[in-house]
């Protein structure tokens, strides 16, 4: 805990973006990226808890092998809606649309994003898509799995596939707009002196993710439109009965949905780079390697999609190529992990809440990444494909990695966003509870997977029960870990101590302005004269012209 906040009484700035003007119109028609970020924060938190409720029901159902809680088709809807909500309406917008939206323009010293109106539009489109998704949910749900595999989704199920597909389609447009805004902002609106080599790694990571958003998302849009056309008008694209090819759908779906994994994880990696350097009081180790690895992941991420299809009927030779490329994409991730670890070497490490989340991230992401090597190994993937091993793997990356990074980032920038400090003790407790609950929930699933329990099973063989009970027990702990921040962060809005401009004594432009920042972020245009993360140097990184 920074001693500064305890000895010097901080006061809130008189004028900032939150009290610049009032009323519902000032929020719903705002062009301020910071307010839009908060709109996103409320929206995706809502979907996180909806998705979380579905997850809890799934885990409760799986307590017994015969699934006493739900009928099979209700269970199928639960895991479909859990996946759709968490992926398209929480994970993909999480770091970019909330933290990135808030902090990226400030990090580059800009007054706002390049296209503030498009930024607002992106939130409206997101809400429009989310509305479709909610309609699909309350009017009977969807039971195709979040992957919408054909011909099941196009010709066999009788649920709201088209409504949900439209929801995802619109949510996709909102992420294209966000990506576009980030790319233009990074290219055109950097503060004087802020060269590419001085960009914070959070900016590099979001830039790389933005490239994927604008290049990949149109493909899922096309795929979902074709799916809707086949379902609605029997135009044969994917269903062999109509002359289509079902595997074509998988190629198109994963051409987006695999890179989408990197849309989700790259910004999280950016957050971790910021947190680890700050709480090690040290320059980041291997800046250019971390920055370049983000771009490498974005590029390689586009050429590994068929590793989801090793048993789906692709040729032996293309399977080999995709396996090889999948190992290529693993290397930049490994490089990042090694660099974060090395950043702590000979630092002055302190354990504030964001750092606890970051350390949890590195550990869990390492396991998530390493188990990816299992799945990329062709002969082994044949056995563990579509089992709980896969479920455990992607939850280690997406929850152990991404959600931990998101929560770390929320805690890290919460004082900047709200001007208030959250209580440190319950926050640390929440981070530890989340870490323990997470491992107890998902580690047993690796074993279940290798034992052969297929995913998406409403009823399962009795020998899998013990590990499922463990997993459910872990999930109840995990739920507490996720509920706690919602409570004390809300509490801090009213009762939290004023944070001061730089409660973590961190480097970076966002800590040079007040907390919360003024509407235009800086009172004068900042000029950057030094490398990023110049911890330990006494001279100021920023001179105000």
């Amino acid at each position: 805990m920074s001693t500064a906040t305890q000895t010097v009484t901080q006061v809130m700035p008189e004028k900032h973006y939150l009290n610049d003007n009032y009323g519902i119109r000032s929020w719903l028609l705002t062009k301020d990226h910071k307010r839009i970020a908060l709109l996103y924060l409320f929206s995706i938190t809502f979907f996180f808890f909806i998705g979380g409720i579905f997850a809890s029901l799934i885990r409760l159902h799986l307590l017994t092998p015969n699934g006493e809680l739900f009928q099979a088709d209700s269970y199928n809807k639960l895991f479909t809606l859990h996946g759709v909500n968490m992926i398209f309406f929480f994970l993909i917008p999480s770091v970019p649309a909330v933290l990135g939206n808030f902090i990226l323009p400030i990090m580059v010293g800009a007054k706002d994003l390049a296209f503030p109106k498009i930024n607002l539009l992106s939130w409206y489109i997101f809400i429009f898509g989310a509305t479709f998704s909610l309609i699909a949910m309350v009017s009977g749900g969807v039971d195709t799995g979040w992957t919408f595999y054909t011909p099941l989704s196009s010709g066999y199920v009788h649920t709201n596939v088209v409504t949900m597909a439209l929801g995802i389609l619109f949510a996709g447009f909102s992420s294209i707009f966000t990506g576009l805004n980030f790319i233009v902002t990074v290219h055109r609106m950097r503060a004087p002196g802020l060269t590419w080599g001085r960009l914070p790694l959070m900016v590099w990571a979001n830039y790389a993710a933005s490239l994927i958003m604008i290049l990949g998302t149109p493909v899922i849009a096309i795929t979902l439109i074709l799916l809707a056309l086949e379902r609605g008008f029997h135009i044969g694209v994917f269903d062999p009965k109509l002359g289509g090819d079902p595997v074509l759908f998988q190629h198109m779906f994963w051409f987006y949905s695999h890179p989408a994994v990197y849309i989700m994880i790259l910004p999280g990696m950016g957050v971790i780079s910021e947190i680890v350097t700050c709480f090690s009081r040290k320059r980041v180790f291997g800046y250019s390697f971390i920055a370049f690895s983000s771009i490498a992941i974005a590029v390689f991420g586009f050429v590994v999609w068929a590793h989801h299809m090793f048993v789906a009927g692709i040729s032996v030779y293309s399977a080999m190529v995709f396996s090889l490329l999948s190992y290529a994409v693993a290397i930049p991730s490994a490089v990042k992990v090694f660099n974060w670890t090395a950043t702590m070497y000979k630092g002055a490490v302190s354990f504030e809440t964001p750092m606890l989340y970051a350390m949890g991230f590195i550990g869990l992401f390492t396991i998530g990444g390493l188990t990816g090597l299992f799945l990329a190994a062709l002969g082994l993937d044949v056995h563990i494909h579509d089992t709980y091993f896969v479920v455990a793997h992607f939850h280690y990356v997406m929850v152990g990695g991404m959600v931990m990074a998101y929560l770390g980032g929320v805690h890290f920038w919460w004082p900047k966003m709200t001007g208030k400090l959250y209580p440190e003790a319950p926050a640390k407790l929440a981070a530890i509870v989340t870490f323990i609950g997470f491992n107890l929930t998902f580690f047993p699933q690796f074993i279940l997977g290798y034992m052969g329990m297929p995913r998406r099973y409403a009823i399962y063989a009795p020998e899998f029960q013990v590990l499922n009970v463990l997993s459910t027990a872990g999930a109840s702990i995990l739920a507490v870990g996720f509920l706690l921040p919602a409570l004390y962060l809300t509490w801090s809005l009213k009762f939290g101590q004023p944070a001061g401009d730089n409660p973590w004594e961190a480097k970076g432009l966002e800590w040079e302005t007040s907390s919360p920042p003024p509407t235009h972020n800086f009172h004068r245009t900042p000029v950057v004269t030094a490398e990023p993360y110049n911890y330990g140097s006494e001279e100021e990184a920023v001179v105000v012209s």
Partner: protein
Amino acid sequence: MAGQVDALYLFLVLISTFFSLLIAILILYFAIKYRKSEGRQAQQIHGSTLLEIVWTVIPLGISMVIFVWGAALYFHLQRPPANALQVYGVAKQWMWKFEYSAGQREINSLHVPTGTPVRVTLISQDVIHSFFVPAFRIKTDVLPNRFMTTWFTATTPGTYHLFCSQYCGTKHSGMVGDVVVMTPKDYASWLESGKAEGSLASLGEKMFQQYGCTTCHRPDSGARGPNLEGVYGRPVRMQDNRVVIADDNYIRNHILNPGTEIVNGFQPIMPTFRGVINEEQMVQIIAYIKSLSEQTGQPLNNRSTPTDIRDTEVPNVQQQMQQDNQIQKSTGK
């Protein structure tokens, strides 16, 4: 096979444990040793290109080992031995049907002998399913538009799970069955006890006559369709001069979509049997056409296909690989 997959798995578990522990221990060690304390200043280090190279090259080397190992297993799995016992399977929402060459049929259970490779050729009647036997470490998706194949050699008698592992709708988790592995002796008596209406091929032959296939597909020279004797598993020349192997998928495609590929020397006059012949009947007809080749027993270079095909035109992947290997060996020396 299971042992080989487990060996790779174990190797990966060891690698993963090593690296996870390495990272975890380093993080905890650094966190404790270099924790912030009174007067402690972080030592500013920019990075080390040497270290970056080391921790790029070592993981790359290890992952290449895993890649080659995994690919070798996969190749093995994709190449069923020629002497394998053939079983056909049809998947549909939500059951498995298996058909043996001698005509025995069963639902949601598959009886196999120990010690003999078993080749399972599968097709779906509706959506995509997946044939997964965890004990044998094998899995293949079952597609509605073409045959997929997997194989295994069972070693220990017993009953093993068969799961559908590709989500296929409401009762996906109920689409399970048993693989019953028996000693060859028990298996033989099990086959005897199965009341078969006739072998698959004989059922196929009935259908072949019933649908009037014999009108055109005859062995005499005036036939309007290609003679099917000895065609199965052999190369056939198409009108556009391509040469394809007449395998299960070829025959199925030609029955359902006769207009898409025309055999050289024939007119596109065959009607489609789409919607007439279901997948179970298809399996029987294929078994019959296959039996026509087994009966004639002609060697590979004496073909009854309409046009002569030189060996160089035959897409023989295995032969190509052997040649490649020989080239590599010779250059290696």
